[in-house]
């Protein structure tokens, strides 16, 4: 009786936490009730149709690009022995270290209408490539964000289907048909989960889409807010965005319905293809890596060497310290919360709507999360203190990071938990263990790699984050991304290269840990 009450109290506490984290989103969702939208009819006729169209098109191009890169590369690095396989295994994650807006600016400087490579091509081949349009941006986003799909797909290929693959091989399947007819369908839930994160990243982007002249729902929000001076319409566009994400979530959920969950946890056996094939695979992986990470890094490093001495190195070290502090604190807090939510999802009778809602934050542009956060913190800050205690504090900034990146923490955990057979829980339950005890003693230890991996992903995201940091930070507080923005925001891309390079290097660190972690289970 007492334990049942304690369990209920625990559940309520978790729900309360979820509501707290869903707060800024609730500000958006309830906006028609509290914020007037005088320009809504203009937005509805002139903006929304075009923006929805371009958003969906951009999303489709980015997804197709990412899938075409991520799934085959994940397959070959797990299934075949070829020169450099181990190096490619981790190096293919590297593009994730590039913040999207920096990648987009860099690509434009190389392959835009006045880009150095474009001009070279025009002079030497007579063809002038141009990425500065919707199609180009879709491909650029796909190139930067494909690791979101590559990581779960590779994990699934490596660990989740060895029995089925062996069976298919016995029945004569091999090569492409093994990949398309057996592996991809089995890995579909993992691929869809990754595609969901990628979609949310594409939807929340503002810097890159604005620069490329693409009109998405996110640019529409800012156009309404800043241009039309109508925050209400901006927030309503935010609701449209959230509905879109809800549809994507539903698709992801459905894709899991008939998925096999019984995983055998045996590593898939690698085969040794013919010498010719080995080098073809090598060339394929090498070109992906060269294009997705090599080219932009070459440009950034080249610029950084030129302007290195113009930078205030003391200030950069200071910014690096702030970035590292924020990233590690946010990762720890987010994962603590994500773990609690995972417990609730596993052992609650129904899934918690507040938890579902809190997970939507990843699709909302950072500046809008910041707005929602400030609206919530405002009343407290305006009350009788000597000054604002929340806005401008590191605590509120960390809270906003949690709201924004919760999905990055929970999605991998939910996924990993699903592959733990329920029979484990039931056996423990029969032996009289409480839900919490089962979670702590059985589920959690098995989740450990996923928790650490998710923490690393959150850290990478926080290192790259700009808009939340920009507006919620305390006085005289610079991070690497705010330092980059100082220059990139005023079209001085070359001067921005040094802090940008530091962001990439800094984000590589957690990615490196992530790879070691995954490598241990997959190798």
């Amino acid at each position: 009786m007492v334990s049942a009450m304690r369990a209920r109290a625990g559940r309520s506490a978790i729900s309360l936490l979820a509501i707290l984290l869903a707060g800024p989103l609730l500000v958006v969702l309830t906006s028609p009730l509290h914020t007037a939208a005088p320009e809504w009819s203009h937005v509805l006729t002139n903006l929304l149709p075009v923006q929805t169209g371009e958003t969906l098109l951009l999303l489709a191009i980015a997804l197709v690009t990412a899938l075409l890169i991520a799934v085959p590369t994940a397959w070959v690095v797990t299934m075949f022995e070829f020169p450099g396989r181990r190096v490619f295994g981790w190096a293919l994650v590297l593009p994730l270290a590039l913040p999207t807006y920096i990648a987009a600016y860099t690509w434009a400087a190389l392959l835009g209408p006045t880009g150095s490579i474009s001009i070279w091509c025009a002079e030497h081949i007579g063809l002038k490539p141009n990425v500065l349009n919707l199609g180009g941006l879709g491909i650029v986003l796909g190139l930067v964000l494909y690791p979101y799909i590559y990581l779960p797909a590779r994990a699934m290929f490596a660990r989740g289907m060895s029995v089925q693959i062996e069976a298919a091989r016995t029945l004569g399947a091999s090569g492409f048909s093994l990949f398309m007819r057996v592996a991809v369908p089995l890995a579909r839930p993992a691929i869809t989960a990754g595609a969901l994160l990628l979609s949310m990243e594409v939807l929340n982007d503002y810097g890159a889409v604005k620069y490329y002249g693409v009109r998405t729902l996110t640019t529409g929000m800012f156009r309404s807010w800043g241009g039309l001076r109508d925050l209400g319409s901006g927030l309503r566009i935010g609701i449209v965005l959230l509905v879109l994400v809800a549809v994507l979530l539903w698709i992801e959920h459905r894709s899991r319905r008939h998925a096999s969950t019984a995983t055998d946890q045996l590593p898939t056996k690698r085969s040794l293809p013919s010498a010719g094939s080995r080098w073809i695979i090598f060339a394929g992986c090498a070109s992906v890596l060269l294009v997705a990470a090599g080219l932009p890094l070459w440009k950034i490093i080249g610029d950084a060497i030129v302007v290195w001495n113009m930078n205030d190195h003391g200030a950069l070290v200071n910014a690096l310290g702030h970035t590292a502090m924020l990233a590690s604190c946010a990762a720890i807090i987010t994962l603590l919360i994500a773990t609690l939510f995972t417990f609730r999802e596993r052992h609650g009778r129904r899934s918690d709507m507040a938890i579902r809602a809190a997970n939507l934050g990843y699709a909302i542009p950072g500046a809008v999360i910041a707005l929602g956060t400030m609206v919530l913190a405002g009343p407290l800050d305006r009350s009788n203190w000597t000054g604002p205690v929340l806005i401008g504090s590191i605590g509120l900034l960390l809270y906003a990071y949690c709201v924004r990146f919760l999905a990055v923490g929970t999605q991998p955990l939910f996924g990993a938990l699903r592959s733990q057979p329920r029979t484990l829980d039931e056996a423990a339950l029969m032996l009289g263990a409480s839900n919490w005890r089962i979670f702590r003693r059985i589920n959690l230890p098995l989740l450990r790699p996923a928790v650490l991996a998710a923490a690393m992903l959150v850290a990478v995201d926080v290192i790259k984050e700009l808009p939340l940091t920009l507006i919620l930070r305390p006085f005289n507080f610079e991070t690497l991304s705010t330092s980059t923005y100082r220059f990139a925001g005023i079209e001085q891309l070359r001067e921005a290269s040094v802090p940008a390079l530091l962001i990439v290097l800094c984000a590589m660190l957690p990615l490196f840990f992530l790879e070691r972690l995954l490598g241990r289970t997959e190798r």
Partner: protein
Amino acid sequence: MNRSLFLMPALALACGDPAPSPTPEPAVPVGPREVNVYTHRHYDTDKVLFDAFSAKTGITVNVIMADDDEVLERMAQEGANSPCDVLITADAGRLGLAKSRGLLQASTSKLLQANVPSSLRDPEGYWYGLTMRARVIAYNKEKVEPGSISTYADLTKPQWKGKVLVRSSENVYNQSLLAAMIAHDGPEAAKAWAQGIVKNMARAPQGGDTDQLLALGEGIGTVAIANSYYIGKLMASDEPEKQKAKAVIGVIFPSIGVHGTHVNISGGGVAKHAKHVEEAIALLEFLSSDEAQTGFAEGNKEYPVKPGIAVAKELEAFGTFQRDSLNLEALGRLNADAVKLFDEAGWR
């Protein structure tokens, strides 16, 4: 593995000094004097000037740099407890918005009134222009007769079909240009202008102002609408990628009808709930002084607001211009109308 993971935050805390939180001030300021600035401007010049102000007065300048609309929202949410003393934005429209939202207070300063011409400041003293940028037309000297353009409207003539380079209407500089046209000639004429430009565009709007200038160098169009300081910076640049454009660019100061060239300002005002009003006014006065005005002009290639201060040599070469004397307060008031006209004209 485990240990190294948990070392990370500790390490980070060790190397990152704890940030000074916005310290609440008691009613009677004690100890070192300070002034808290919220600014949208992220130019190194400003940092240098703030440091010079501190050195001169002993007043510490604390800064948060972020985008205009977010900054206004932060001030509004902080309310009476806001630590902000001075708000600086890079758009007169946003200053007008801050005034109408009750985020600023009127300040009277003889020095500011003397240094800043009356059309570049709020009639009631809520904000003061500090530096000025003109929205001009850059042209390819090899392909365009400069005499063929004297107004913004000239760019809508059929001879410029496929030649006009301009960034998207998402940008506030385009919005305030159109707002100024609405103020002078009414919405019909302004819309016709926007439609005429859309018809003559060399390509779909993309990139920033600098990208339009670089496109001139590549022969993608022959005329580009851009802000003066981007041209000044390009002219001062040693980057190899920018040399081609640098060699061909000339500048025209077009007029809105007979009214003169459109300008916008960066400016500042004292926050409504400022706790350091005296220091705030001192900072604004310093920023309008000869020393700071020269700093803005040299460092950031902006036009000084104070009459008689020399412009940067890169801009001097382009000659002088007649500035539109429209009070900039109109830009904020008409900004939303301008955005709607852009949408109706199909200007991305």
